[in-house]
């Protein structure tokens, strides 16, 4: 009997908690429907693409046909003969493609882009590609970060392609050159990405969630019942958040500098400018998404709806160039991508003001637009 009562209590508690959840439509949307929509969208976008696409830089030289000691074709001649030429575009006039068919694991496609050493290094630092091929004295040279497993994978496959087709058949006719200079390592790619992500997370969770919580606790209502200027409240939140983010990012950089010798190659003033622009952008978005709701669960969903796609797409941890080509222009316009790319260009490519002026302007516009819209629709009560 006692057991039966206890089970009934448990059943009642479970029933009450279920009702508590399902009677909030917004919670249902953000908890159930939104993840399904995300899975649907991202699934359709990326699951059908089973091919692995890797980009390879081939250093241009004046020799059109190069042969090794055994009269075998090296890279350029090999590509002309065995690879498919890609329709030239304005940015990429010389591109070739080789696809290794594999029904079980999916095809692997290598896209070869002829470019200068300087450009190849920039593309490598940006994470657009993982490996550079060059030919010297009748030997193919592979340049990549030895700690980058994906580059290793590319090297092994490329070596097999060129070997099978007669370019390199003998030991010693190819060589591997580890790239360990600053800016080419994974850590050099990672640190600016982490800084950008830190700004986004800190603004979205710190500001949005904080405001929703204050609204739920009726503190906002109490504050606006005084002569407090409403815009000051929002500006003060943003000021504190920018200062905190600056401190956090400085500490992250100092750690990366001391332990991994990560350096800033470009303009420090430029770095500060785009960093503040990024904070303003995410601060504005944070104010906008938290401008109405007083339900912390809904707030949770809203913050995730903004943060999750950018975390996945914006190339914080890995280059977004591995996503399908059609998605790249969209990804590049996301605020987190703009900030991460901008920070990386200064950190590892040595960029100055001229290179970051456009992303800075876009980030500022995003911030001002969302801040104004958020203030317009802000619910204080």
């Amino acid at each position, binding site marked *: 009997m006692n057991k039966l009562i206890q089970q009934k209590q448990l059943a009642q508690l479970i029933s009450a908690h279920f009702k508590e959840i399902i009677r909030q439509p917004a919670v249902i949307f953000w908890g159930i429907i939104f993840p399904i929509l995300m899975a649907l969208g991202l699934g359709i976008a990326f699951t059908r693409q089973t091919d692995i696409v890797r980009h390879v830089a081939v250093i241009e030289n004046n020799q059109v046909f190069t042969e090794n000691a055994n009269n075998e074709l090296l890279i350029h001649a090999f590509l002309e003969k065995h690879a498919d030429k890609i329709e030239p575009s304005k940015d990429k006039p010389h591109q070739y493609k080789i696809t290794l068919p594999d029904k079980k694991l999916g095809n692997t496609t290598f896209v070869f882009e002829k470019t200068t050493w300087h450009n190849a290094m920039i593309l490598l630092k940006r994470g657009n590609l993982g490996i550079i091929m060059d030919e010297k004295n009748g030997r193919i040279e592979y340049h990549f970060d030895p700690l980058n497993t994906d580059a290793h994978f590319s090297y092994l496959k490329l070596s097999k392609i060129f070997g099978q087709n007669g370019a390199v058949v003998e030991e010693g006719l190819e060589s591997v050159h580890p790239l360990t200079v600053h800016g080419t390592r994974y850590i050099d790619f990672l640190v600016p990405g982490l800084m950008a992500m830190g700004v986004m997370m800190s603004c979205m969770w710190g500001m949005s969630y904080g405001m929703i919580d204050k609204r739920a606790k*009726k*503190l906002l209502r*109490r504050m606006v019942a*005084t*002569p407090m200027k409403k815009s000051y409240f929002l500006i003060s939140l943003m000021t504190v958040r920018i200062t905190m983010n600056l401190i956090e990012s400085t500490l992250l950089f100092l750690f990366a500098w001391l332990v991994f010798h990560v350096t800033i190659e470009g303009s420090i003033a430029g770095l500060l400018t785009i960093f503040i622009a990024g904070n303003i952008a995410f601060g504005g978005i944070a104010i906008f998404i938290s401008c109405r709701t007083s339900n912390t669960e809904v707030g949770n969903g809203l913050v995730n709806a903004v943060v999750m796609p950018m975390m996945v797409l914006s190339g914080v941890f890995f280059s977004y160039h591995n996503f399908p080509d059609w998605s790249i222009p969209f990804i590049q316009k996301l605020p987190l991508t703009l900030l991460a790319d901008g920070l990386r260009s200064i950190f590892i490519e040595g960029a100055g003001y001229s290179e970051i002026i456009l992303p800075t302007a876009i980030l500022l516009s995003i911030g001002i637009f969302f801040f104004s819209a958020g203030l317009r629709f802000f619910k204080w*009560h």
Partner: protein
Amino acid sequence: MKKNPVIEVKNVFKSFKNVQAVNGVDFKIFKGQSVALLGPNGAGKTTLMEMIEGIQKPDKGDILIMGKKWKGNERELHRDIGLSLQETHFIDRLTVFETLKLFAGFYELKRQRVDEIIRIIGLAEKTRSYVVNLSGGQRQRLALGIALLNNPKILLLDEPTTGLDPNARREIWSILMDLKKRSQTSLILTTHYMEEAEQLCERIIIIDNGRILKQGTLEQLLKEDNDDKIIEFALEESNPAIDRISNPSGFQIQWDADRDNGIIVLKQIEKQLPEFLNFLNQNNLRLRHLECRRKTLDDLFTTMTGRRLHE
């Protein structure tokens, strides 16, 4: 002194979906007056208060604060009003001093005023305590302190002592009584505690279902039936359904099943009390407790609505 009302509520209506929260309310409050909006939960007190505070807009009717409407005069009126909401959580990890200093900043007040308020609300020993570590009564005193920071001409308190223990309630009352002595601040407070209304306010507005049932001073409210006496009694028998037994004397028994006691309003106690005892005897009901007292606001409310204030 009472020429121009500081608050004028003119035929105000407010509804939410299908609920008519405030249904044609009219009243005026003058400088230095203390007025209680007394009513049970859901009577419409908080909605009315929020409209006076400018937080909500009436669907119909006007509210004038010192002769001005809220629209276009927000900043000016906020300077003259102090308020305490029914429920406010301040920033957990700010100290009492820091919280008061924050709000003092909104009114451009100096530290001296913060120190004064800390003394008035009796939180000198808690100045450096985080808000999260304060008791319910201390938090409510802090809320009251914030409401008093700007030396308001009008003080609006929404259920300032709800949920507090009797000691904490008396501490709040003491601060407010002291304020009444010292200043000409007009006070409106909502409450469902009859004693609070009696203690703090010279005028009481009884409100239920969004309407004013009765208003006036305590004396005026109880004057009409001033000679009425209340018999409050309990019986040895539980749940006796005594209110359903017909009695030839015709006195009305209001039986409260929750409290297991009954109330009768007697106009001529000398004649009717023996009749009541006789009635109990005839129905084999035995008294456990009997008390005769004067009529209170709670009794008045019960007479008017059939419900008690605390329901």
